[in-house]
């Protein structure tokens, strides 16, 4: 019974909105112009140009020369391409879940209402504000130096620390750790998510005698699943594009054990001036990210709950 009336009200409402917006459309477009220009010239234009470049041989100094799909053909036979794919996937598979779990755990701890909790939240959020910067990366490089603070501490307790950044096994771990340490933005989103869960769910569970752990796994996590999903997707996308930390910490070494995909793309573009080849690499990256994100959306049906 209520449904038709609601629809009528809604449509009347939207009609009013539409006419209002057409009157102020000029203003909207006026304000939007800088962004529209930016979008068209800087983003869309550049994207279309990249697609064109991917089918050319272009070294910046001479005109692009059309070579068809040759770049893609060469990429598939390039051992460094496969190395970078392997390194990047290992990184994504380890760092994304590690960062999710870390941010979820810390958010759970910081969800308590105690005095001064705001200061703790701010302090713990801080690393993610500065974590992607060159300065932090250089700091980490010093921290994990052969004779750096980490190894000094290990030495003090009688352990012999490895050459962190010089060992192919540990170098990627340092980069994973740096990523996990920047869990702040996910943590803030989780904290906001906790506030969205209705209190009555916990009240009735308590009355039914459910323990705190049981409540966490049967109320908190399912209610939080859309937010976990959001962080998972965003984290996966940004992990594929990791560059700064690797560029500063290891520059792809030792033995290509940290040759991340975007670092390899950068090398091809700005060290060897193989712009066409790099453009082709970036298109492959776009496809990889799209496929992985699509896969995550497919799995969402099975574990993400949008209703109570």
């Amino acid at each position, binding site marked *: 019974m209520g449904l038709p009336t609601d629809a009528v009200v809604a449509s009347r409402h939207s009609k009013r909105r539409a006419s209002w917006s057409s*009157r102020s459309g000029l203003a909207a477009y006026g*304000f939007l112009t800088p962004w529209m220009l930016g979008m068209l010239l800087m983003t869309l234009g550049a994207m279309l140009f990249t697609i064109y470049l991917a089918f050319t041989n272009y070294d*910046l100094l001479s005109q692009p020369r059309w070579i068809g799909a040759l770049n893609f053909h060469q990429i598939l036979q390039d051992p460094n391409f496969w190395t970078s794919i392997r390194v990047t996937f290992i990184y994504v598979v380890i760092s994304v879940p590690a960062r999710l779990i870390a941010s979820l755990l810390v958010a759970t701890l910081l969800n308590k209402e105690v005095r001064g909790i705001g200061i703790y939240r701010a302090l713990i959020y801080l690393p993610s504000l500065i974590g992607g910067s060159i300065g932090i990366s250089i700091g980490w490089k010093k921290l994990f130096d*052969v004779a750096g603070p980490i190894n000094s501490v290990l030495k003090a307790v009688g352990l012999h620390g490895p050459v962190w950044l*010089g060992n192919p096994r540990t170098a990627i771990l340092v980069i994973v750790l740096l990523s996990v340490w920047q869990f702040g933005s996910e943590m803030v989103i989780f904290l906001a998510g906790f506030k969205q869960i209705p209190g009555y769910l916990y009240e009735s569970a308590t009355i039914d005698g459910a323990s705190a752990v049981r409540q966490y796994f049967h109320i908190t996590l399912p209610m939080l699943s859309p937010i976990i999903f959001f962080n998972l997707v965003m984290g996966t996308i940004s992990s594929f594009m990791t560059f700064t930390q690797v560029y500063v910490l290891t520059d792809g*070494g*030792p033995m290509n054990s940290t040759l991340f995909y975007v670092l390899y793309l950068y090398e091809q573009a700005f*060290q*060897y*001036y193989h712009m066409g080849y790099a453009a082709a690499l970036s298109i492959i990256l776009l496809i990889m990210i799209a496929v992985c994100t699509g896969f995550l959306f497919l799995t969402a049906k099975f574990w993400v709950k949008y209703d109570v």
Partner: protein
Amino acid sequence: MNGFKMKVASVAVLGLATTLTLSGCGTSGKSSGANNASESGQENITFSWWTSPQRTAETKKAIALFEKKYPNIHVTMEYTGWSGYWSKLATESAGGSEPDVMQMDASRLAEYITKGQLADLSSNQTIDTSSIPKNILQLGDMNGKLYAIPAGVNATTWIYNPAILKQAGIQFDPSKNYTWDDFAKICEEIHQKLPNVYGVDDEIDQGAVLAYYAQTRGEHMYTPDGKLAISKQTLTDWFTYWLDLQNKGGCPPAQVNASYDHSNTQESPFIKGETAFQYMFIGEELEYQQDLGKPIEHALFPDWADSDKPYTVHPAMYWAISSHTKYPDAAAKLVNFLENDPQVSKIFLNERGVTVNQDNLKADAKVGDAMLKEQDSVMSQVEKVASPSYLDPPAAGQIGDLLTQIAQQVTFKKLTPSQAADQFYTQATNMLAQG
């Protein structure tokens, strides 16, 4: 409602106006600048170079002198670090906004010449080359035309820390013509006497040293027309030499070597007093001496006095002029000034390589310190035994990175020296074919 409409409209107009101003200001600024220039006879040229803090200060002084001498020429200075410099220069060249005068490196020169980016200076009357020895001027030559003026020359040598050798009780005489095996024995002995010290930095991944090694065996890295010339046997022996040295403690273990990226002096094992020898271009050692805080000495590489004449004079850097410059005359005046002015030479000394203008070289020696005199004397020692060289092919930079990758796999024992030689040979040949 009318008032509201007015407000909306005015805001919209304001937004549009701002956008147009913002997006238009780049071009309008430029064109008005050009107009002013032509009216007052003022010539604006851009000069760009890769730099270090010391070089920035020195170059600014030189430009101030130039602008004082030629008040109608204004020089816009662009400077940045080594790796950023080449990205920037290539991007600017692609966009048609390349600098009029640029500092050029031997590893990139052939590429810029073949792509038509550099002006032919063969018959330029403004640039005086009469005080530059013919064999040095020829370093800027391609197919009989002069495209770049060498700003200075240098060569690769060992630098060593005499305090370590003394402590280890090793007699080392830099005037002797040691063989590669002699040198390996000295390095191993250092480690035997001082267990925390290695003889030499691991140079297995250093293209400049490998090129020299090839020449001690009568081979070259590349042919004059840019094909791979080094043999697989020489590559195998090169990897074997350094792997043996590593196994015997003559150079540091793989992991220590891999964690040092050769870009930061402070992290060099040589500066930390962990190695006695390191390879170095003449002119760059001053920073090492300052960081080490102790005097360092030079020694030429093994087999330097052999009949093969393995040494070559290396152009430290060049001055070049863009083929698209609007002010070729002002640009040539600047190059001539930087190259030949005695005052500028006294400011630069050997910071851009050992001075090639022979008159300035003599005059600078009178004001220079002990390090300058040593650099001059090592360079003249090299010049006496050097054979002519030619430019590396454009892919040389990429092949340098390939060497680093493959050499690391040798040091970590993932590849045997002969497997490494095969891989290097195949991949380098491919890179050269692709250009």
